[in-house]
């Protein structure tokens, strides 16, 4: 039955959708833009003539902007609680909070703006409810659009492209060890089991970077059986905060790419270097490998990169970025993301 459970979860497109992290600058910016578009639309509807739109907009904004800023601050402060209570409850809580906020602001601001008093509170309450729902619905759609559940088909296509190569080659390598070095074969199978457990798990979550590095080392240990001394790895992780959270499986696909495009095509092999370090409030992951330059970017490679980019976006919005460049026969990919740790 467990098998059917996983199949079903793929089809539930709503799983994994949560309110966005309102402390994130990108999310805040989006909220400001969305709310102002809504206010502008309301101003256009309320204005008696086109020339009155600006005045209407100003009077509405005089109310909406303070409400928006206070809301964002409040939502940022209580985001952990909102995530804990579940998606539907958090929607209701946000709507109720906005109503209460609107009630107080209505009585405070009414005296300050000429003409503001003309609008009865019931009308203001309706506009606030619609505005809030409109904004939350925007984030809902955005989150769904970026959700790995929707991208499942694409991800499976990606798996079909790059993982079988590794899977069959590794099994072949382990088979060759069976007779001569049974202990090493055992070890390799254990590493493979660990790796595939993670590969098959839900990778929409965040995981500590220390764990990601361990997994990457297990992966490289398997590759080393086949490639021997052609595969050389330099880890630079002394300044790595092991508890920093990153999207799970952020490192291994990059290493798989590095092996496939950088090491295997070179007769003498080459060195992959990985550096993980904290720089202020950011975590920087950087990986470099030789690029013998067959000039062929396979579809598999592009999809792996796009997939990691998408997951970074989902978790960190515009606060994370990923760049790659090829200079002087070296391919380098750098990921920068906010330094985050699990709540204690």
């Amino acid at each position, binding site marked *: 039955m467990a098998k059917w459970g996983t199949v079903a979860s793929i089809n539930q497109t709503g799983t994994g959708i949560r309110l966005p992290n309102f402390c994130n600058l990108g999310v805040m910016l989006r909220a400001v833009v969305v709310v102002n578009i809504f206010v502008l639309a309301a101003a256009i509807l309320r204005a008696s003539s086109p020339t009155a739109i600006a005045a209407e907009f100003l009077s509405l904004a005089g109310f909406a902007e303070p409400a928006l800023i206070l809301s964002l601050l409040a939502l940022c402060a209580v985001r952990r609680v909102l995530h804990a209570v579940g998606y539907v409850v958090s929607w209701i809580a946000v709507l109720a909070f906005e109503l209460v906020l609107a009630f107080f602001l209505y009585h405070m601001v009414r005296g300050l703006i000429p003409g503001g008093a003309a609008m009865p509170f019931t009308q203001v309450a309706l506009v606030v409810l619609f505005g809030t729902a409109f904004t939350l619905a925007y984030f809902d759609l955005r989150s769904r659009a970026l959700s790995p559940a929707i991208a499942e088909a694409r991800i499976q296509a990606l798996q079909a*492209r790059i993982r079988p190569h590794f899977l*069959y*080659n590794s099994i*072949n390598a382990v*088979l060759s060890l069976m*007779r001569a070095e049974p202990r090493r074969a055992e070890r390799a199978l254990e590493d493979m089991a660990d790796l595939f457990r993670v590969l098959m798990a839900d990778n929409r979550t965040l995981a500590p970077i220390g764990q990601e590095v361990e997994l990457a080392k297990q992966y490289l240990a398997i590759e080393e059986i*086949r490639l021997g001394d052609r595969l050389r790895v330099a880890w630079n992780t002394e300044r790595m905060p092991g508890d920093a959270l990153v999207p799970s499986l952020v490192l291994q696909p990059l290493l798989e790419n590095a092996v496939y495009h950088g090491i*295997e095509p070179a*007769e003498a092999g080459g060195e992959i270097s990985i550096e993980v370090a904290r720089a202020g409030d950011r975590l920087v992951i950087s990986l470099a490998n030789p690029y*013998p330059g067959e000039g062929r970017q396979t579809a598999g490679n592009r999809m792996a990169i796009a997939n990691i980019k998408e997951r970074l976006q989902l978790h960190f919005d515009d606060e994370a970025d990923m760049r790659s460049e090829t200079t002087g026969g070296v391919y380098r990919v750098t990921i920068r993301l906010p330094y985050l740790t699990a709540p204690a």
Partner: protein
Amino acid sequence: MTLAQTEVPRILLADDEAPARQRLRDLLDECRETFPLAIVDEARTGREALDVLNREKVDIVLLDIRMPDMDGLEAARHIAGMAAPPAIIFTTAFDSYAFKAFEVNAIDYLLKPIRRERLLTALNKTRGSPPVSREALAAAANLPRRHLSVHERGKIHLVPLGDVLYLRAELKYVTVRTADREYLVEESLTKLEEEFGEAFVRIHRNCLVARQAIAGFERNAEESESGWAVVIRATGEKLAVSRRQQNVVKQFR
């Protein structure tokens, strides 16, 4: 019984991964009982495989597709041009492109991890069945070769494509001109143009010139119906441009 018949098939293993070669050795050892054989040598790249073939008599090559320096497919295309080519058995772990291309062109291959029974069947099949044709291999390849191969006195000589100045069709052969000398290859100019069209330009019904070998153009050339001739950089040779291909002159000016 003649001596040749008592000789066992001589096998060459080509794979860039040491464990994969070891596994093939183990399996071949187990095949010996029913299929007597001798392992001649091992190679780590397509080029090494060709070197072994130039040195040793080989009857069967077990050829991995994905190898550095020169992949199995290119090596196979050079091998297939030999006067008495060995049988080729391709091996691959996973290559969705190759699967499809091989199926379409009826080329046999073994999937890694390889089973002993499957290997034995493939070995037995090499007796009697004709070697894979150059045409089938060319059709299955997804990339142009990086060398042309010249077969002289039973040896494979590779000419890097970057060294080729021009290709000129003769009666039955194509002359391959490099800065140092000329070679003859048994291929068709049309097929070569299809494969290397990006690096070469046709200046005449019987001639393709490497773009990078063109030093310039000369007017009022003798024996040229268009009046133009291409000047080759390394040798200073002048090759006539036909009336039909005159537009290439404009392309380069």
